[in-house]
């Protein structure tokens, strides 16, 4: 039993030694690899120690301490928009847009409703350009 344990531990050490040797010899014999590792090191430094540290904070973690505060904030954003607009009877400066939505001229030859030329403006989407 003891013999077996010592034998298997010896084999284990052999395997570990061979793996370490593979890496050591491999790294020693690298030529192009050294240049590539330098590029990787510089890149990883820039990504993690410059970009991440100084330019890419986790905004929710920075602003809030607990998960419930973060949830509260996101729920706030999710429920804030359009709160001042009536769903069926829009008013204020958004009225034209919402009104245009509700105003559906008769269907065209393809079976879907048309909007008049004056209402087309309200459908313009800034993102489209």
């Amino acid at each position, binding site marked *: 039993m003891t013999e077996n344990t010592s034998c298997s531990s010896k084999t284990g050490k052999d395997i570990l030694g061979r793996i370490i040797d*593979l890496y050591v*010899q*491999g*790294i020693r*014999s690298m030529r*192009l*690899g050294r*240049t*590539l*590792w330098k*590029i*990787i090191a510089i*890149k*990883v430094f820039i*990504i993690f120690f410059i*970009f*991440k540290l100084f*330019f*890419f*904070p*986790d*905004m*929710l973690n920075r602003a809030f301490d607990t*998960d419930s505060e*973060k*949830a509260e904030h*996101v*729920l706030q*954003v*999710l*429920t804030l*928009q*359009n*709160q001042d607009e009536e*769903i*069926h009877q829009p008013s204020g400066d*958004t009225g034209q*847009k919402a009104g*245009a*939505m*509700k105003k*559906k001229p008769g269907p*065209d030859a*393809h*079976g*879907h*409703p*048309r*909007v008049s*030329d004056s*209402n*087309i403006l*309200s*459908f*313009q*989407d*800034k*993102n*489209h*350009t």
Partner: protein
Amino acid sequence: MLEHIDLSTVNWARAQFALTAMYHWIFVPLTLGLSFLCAFFETIYVKTGKEEWKELTRFWMKLFGINFAIGVATGIILEFEFGTNWANYSWMVGDIFGAPLAIEGIAAFFLEATFFAVMFFGWNRVSQKFHLFSTWMVAIGSNLSALWILVANGWMQFPTGMAFNPDTARFEMKNFFEVVFSPYAISKFTHATTSGFVLSSFFVIAIASYYLSRKRHVLMAKRSIAVAALFGLVASLLLAFTGDEAAFIDAKHQPMKLAAMEGLWDGTTNAPIVAFGIVNGMKKPGDFNDPFVFDFKIPGLLSLLANRQPGSFVPGINDLVFGNSGQNITGVTDMIERGRLAVKYLGEYKNAKEAGDISRAANALAEFNKHESFLGYGHLKSPAEAVPPVSITFYSFHVMAAVGTAMILILALFLFYTMKGTIENAAWLYPLGILFFVLAFVAGEAGWVVAEVGRQPWAIQGLLPVSVARTDIAPVNVKLTFFMFLATFTLLLIAEIRIMLSQIQKGPKEVN
């Protein structure tokens, strides 16, 4: 024209994400395909025992290593951007993306990192068979890594296997397998990986063509072309098949994207495919302008491809915006109304819960659940916001499809002349091999533009528009990092190209 471009924070954040993702996608497809090509080359070496195949494998493996080294960690930047520019989105999807991305990390670490060392350091140090096994493991591991990020992307296109928790404002995973095996996850994975296989085949063909044109490493070049052309041709046919599948599921779940891809404004039976055309960029939903300045259409083909039924109805952008009762299509106009109800009742639920009014909270929640699937529409200010940029989607799709079709022909020609044994005489084909390597990159990037721009305004289809997903930060922050990335990425790309070119110039070791 420039004055019409909306340079708000959300668009800068989108531009930054697009820049990072497109840059990342320069390296990823080469890794996906070249790893398999190396495995094929090495398998032939082990089977034949010929040293020429070993040197050939080592040469392509070296180029694979350069690409891998320069590309490594470029994807991590996307995760930084989530936390900074897309904080609301990041919070909401954390539960869904956690599992796939964790699996990706583990798979990448154990499969790639472990066997990668054996693949590069193990020549003559481990047995031939174990080395071959390691090469295959790197190929499988790389592609499996891609699976998980594409599952996450597929979920954004078609959110499934989850439920929205109104208390935590998070989408929570309910069925892992529904997420992993969703039609979009499968489609994204198969289409993206096959595109990588084709691109990598052209990478090998382009370099081999260069050698043939210079009468250098002729035997190695011919052998490389034989394997790459066969692999590329099979992959390009699969690419066409998976692309067709992707359009088919778009017709079911993202009909607006499909309509934009084809510039189809008014739905019709026997819908045509536009073989080529010039889009009228001034066209808006509901107007009477012609959709095209010029077009050449193939009648009926879109109906067949979208529904697998000749002559069937394919909805256009106007049908989807305004609805079409004849075809039982609910318009965005109505969805916005339901979305606003979802937003309203979610707010009521939140307020009632805070006030401790359990009964009012329960009622509000019940009402919210009725309209929950339209939540994202409640944040649109007009139905036109649900229409993606048609020109960009149309042209990107057509460039991708045209290049994809031509690639099949070019690969078939390379294979034909290789099989015939006259590839050395087909010098006219070499420039095409090099050109199509560049075009394969263009097609791959265009494909991502179709997939992502074509589903605007959504961060998560139908549930979360980008305008809500974003973080409320000053545009100057995003602009600054955008240009920092641009500079860093350009430098890295120059480094990669220079190192690659110097290794290509050196070429493989000749075996006497």
